[in-house]
């Protein structure tokens, strides 16, 4: 893999006496999607602010697109796109006007707003004021705005939060397209499923520190527990059995007796279903940090 789009080394940042980011180190390559996962107050937003040059780190270094610690911030900002969690659009302007305004800030003279609106499914509503948009439409416009300058690094904060499944799938498709184009995508989210589906690698951040960072599959193998969930019919006509009753059992596949257990279950005439199970990212996060993501 070539030079990293983002290289972060030992970054620390405090708000007064509160340590928000504590020696964070990671890198993101061009074309890679990295999910940054953690609960509220874990240091995600502060990390993004440091990366986007809105905050200067107290210690450590950030190298992004060749710019050391912010470097030429104007030039750096010309090559990044940011999609905030808050829907910070101009509600009194139309979707088209919002995109036009930001394209002018980037000095783009031939920006095709119609194509950009079409890409996020807003071509028909582009001339409506944003205050009349639904939450999903606003979110799609937010993503379109983050992509105005065809950025080399994209920061996305909860990009599908609260969206209907169709809109969420469309946004995920866009993110993958951008990564395929070569953009490095830095995704901060609470949504473990989204991170699992989209990310090439995920980083768990807790109390300002990265506690684990790897491909989702590797994390599951390393920290998870493989098992099978078995459902058995319990109504055999015996006295006391409720009609339609189901018994559910989980068998750990990591034990020596696993093969024997599976064989016995397979021969059991009461067997209804048998599913393999693997640990979710959320399970692993809880295992590593002792806390959930909420």
């Amino acid at each position, binding site marked *: 893999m070539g030079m990293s789009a983002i290289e972060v080394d030992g970054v620390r940042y405090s708000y007064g006496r509160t340590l928000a980011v504590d020696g964070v180190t990671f890198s993101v390559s061009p074309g890679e999607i990295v999910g940054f996962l953690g609960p509220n107050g874990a240091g995600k937003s502060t990390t993004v602010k440091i990366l986007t040059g809105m905050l200067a780190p107290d210690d450590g270094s950030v190298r992004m697109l060749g710019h050391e610690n912010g470097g030429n911030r104007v030039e750096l900002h010309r090559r990044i796109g940011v999609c905030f969690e808050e829907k910070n659009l*101009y509600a009194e302007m139309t979707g088209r006007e919002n995109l036009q305004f930001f394209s002018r*800030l980037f*000095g783009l003279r031939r920006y095709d707003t119609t194509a950009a609106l079409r890409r996020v499914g807003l071509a028909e509503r582009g001339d409506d004021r944003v205050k009349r948009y639904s939450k999903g439409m606003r979110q799609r416009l937010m993503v379109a705005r983050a992509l105005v300058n065809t950025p080399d690094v994209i920061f996305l904060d909860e990009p599908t939060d609260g969206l209907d499944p169709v809109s969420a799938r469309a946004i995920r498709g866009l993110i993958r397209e951008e990564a395929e184009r070569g953009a490095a995508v830095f995704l901060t989210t609470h949504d473990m499923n989204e991170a699992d589906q989209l990310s090439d690698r995920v980083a768990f951040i807790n109390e300002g520190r990265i506690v684990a960072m790897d491909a989702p599959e590797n994390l599951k193998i390393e920290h998870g527990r493989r098992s099978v969930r078995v459902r058995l019919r319990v109504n055999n006509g015996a006295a006391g059995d409720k009609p339609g009753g189901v018994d559910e059992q989980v068998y750990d596949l990591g034990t020596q007796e696993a093969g024997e257990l599976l064989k016995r279950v397979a021969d059991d005439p009461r067997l209804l279903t048998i599913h393999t199970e693997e640990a979710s990212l959320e399970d692993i996060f809880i295992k590593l940090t002792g806390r959930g993501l909420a």
Partner: protein
Amino acid sequence: MRRAAAFAAILRKDLLLMTRDGMFIALTVLAITTFVALYYLLPSEVQPGFTLGVRGPELQPIFEQLVAEQEEPVPIVFHEEEEALFGAVERREIDVGISFPHAMLEAIRAGERATVTVYVTPALPVEYRDAVHTIVREIAFALAGYELPVTEPDEQTVIVGPDVGPVPLRDRMRPLYAFMVLIMEAIALGALISAEIQQKTLSAIVVTPARTSDVLLSKGVLGTFVAFTEAAIVLFIIRGFGPSPGLVLFALVLGAMLVTGVAMIAGSAGKDLWSTMVIGIVMLIPLAIPAFSSLFPGTTAGWVRVIPSYGLVSAISAASIYGAGWADVAADLAVLAGWVVAFALAGIAVLRRRIRAL
């Protein structure tokens, strides 16, 4: 070149948002119509009544006797020295100052002619000047003990300031109208800045090639332009430019910059629209005191002169009502310019800090 494009884009966007802001439109229409209507509804004639100052504490008993005989007594302020009397008229603390010579009593009783100097404000109606002449004669008779013949004193009338004749209340209100318009625009601008901060749209701008200074400059230019334009329109309609329109317009530009600084502070400090309005109003009320003070010439207390907006009101008042020129108000404008710099720097500092904290 690219910075200019970013600045132009922000300015264009701000202007677009202003024209789509219901509160801004309502305040603008309200300000123009209300103040213009108020101007033309108020009488164009002056109201009767004036205040009198006298040099000659030794004459106090005689004056008190004269006043006691009046149906509507004229308030009298006594001064020890002629210089103090002149200063009081000049500052419009009183409308008329009569300076009797120190040896007047002896002169009149000896049948010699004494010279009485009468200082009047330019706005004093002519008929009041005649009344003053009568007062001087009455005093002479009283001093002589009403023994005829009395040698009447010579009377020398000095108009302190350009003689423009009486000024109706509605014209004295011109600086107030101008300042109120500036205040309303400042509140509207503060609300817009506050909305940008609360809705976090500024966060989206500062991660583009646009710099914080582009945002600050845009707000400053737009706020000044809109406040100035509206105040100038109102003053134009109510014929408030006087013989020196350039001077009035320059004072308005400074005034618009002053209130834009206030708008930046209020817009940055407010947690929401209402707190922004409260902070803006709390800051602007003291600034309006000189404008109200100008309604009552001669009543301006010394502390009012240190209020930042005093130079603005004083310059507009002097130029639009009394026909003052650049030289006459240069000091006021210089002090005002100093305050503008202070407010602009404070506004920029507060807004910059808020943007960085986003």
